C-alpha cells in the first residue's frame, strides 16, 4: 500500500508522472495553480505500490512517495 503527495504549487503539469505511473494513478487537474499550470492529481484508489517512478521523473520534485499501512 502506498500513496503520493503532490505539491500543487510546485507542480508544472508536465505530465511526466502521469505517463510513467504503471498504475495510471495520476492525472492533471482541471484547475490552474497560481503559476497558471494544471497540476497533477493523485487518484488514490489503493493501488499505488510506492514504486516511485513518478518521483523519479518529476522535474519539480513535487512528489512525495509514502509506503506502508495507512494509519
Amino acid at each position, binding site marked *: 500500500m502506498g500513496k503520493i503527495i503532490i505539491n500543487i504549487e510546485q507542480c*508544472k503539469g508536465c505530465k511526466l508522472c502521469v505517463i510513467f505511473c504503471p498504475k495510471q494513478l495520476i492525472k492533471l487537474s482541471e484547475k*490552474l495553480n*497560481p*503559476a*497558471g499550470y494544471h497540476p497533477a492529481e493523485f487518484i488514490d484508489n489503493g493501488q499505488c505500490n510506492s514504486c516511485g517512478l513518478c518521483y523519479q521523473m518529476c522535474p519539480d520534485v513535487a512528489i512525495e512517495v509514502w509506503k506502508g499501512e495507512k494509519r
Partner: protein
Amino acid sequence: MREEIIMAGFGGQGIMFAGTLLAHAAMEEGLNVTYFPSYGAEMRGGTANCTVIISDENIGSPVVTNPSALLAMNESSLEKFSSKVKKDGLIIVNSSLLKKEIKINDVEILKIPATELAEKLGDNKVANMVILGAYINRSKVVSLERTMDSLKKVLGEGRKNLLKLNREALKKGEENR
C-alpha cells in the same frame, strides 16, 4: 494625449501579441508609440508583461512605473500592478480567472470575463483580444477598424488563418462595453 498601458498575464496568454497589435494600430493612426516587453526575473514560465505608450508628443522612456491603464489577464498580474496605476486610471481585468474581490481607490475597474467569452468563440487563447477590444472601446485611443487592419499585418501571411477568430474576439471585447 498620452496613454500608458501595461498588459500583464501568464506566459502563453498572448500579452506580447496584444501589445504589439495595439502599438501597430497606434502607429497607423499616425501617433507616436513605443512598445516594451518585460520578462521579469523569470525568463521561463511565470508572468509576462509589456508596456505600450501612445502619444501625440515625443515619448521618452518606453518604460513606465505608473501606467494610466492596466490590462490584467490574471489575478497575479492584477496584484502585481494594480497599486501602480495612476489616480483616475483604468484597470481592465479578466474576471474569468479572478477569485478574490478587488477594490482599489481612485481607479476605474472594468471586469471582463474574457476567457469565458473567448471560449465561447471557440478558443480561450483569444481572451487577449477580448480584453484589448474592451480597452479600445473605452479609451478610443485607436479605432477598432484600424486595429482590425493592423491585425492582418501583424499576423502576416503565416498566421492568416487566425485572423477571423482574433477579429471576432476583438469585436466581442469592443462590444462588451
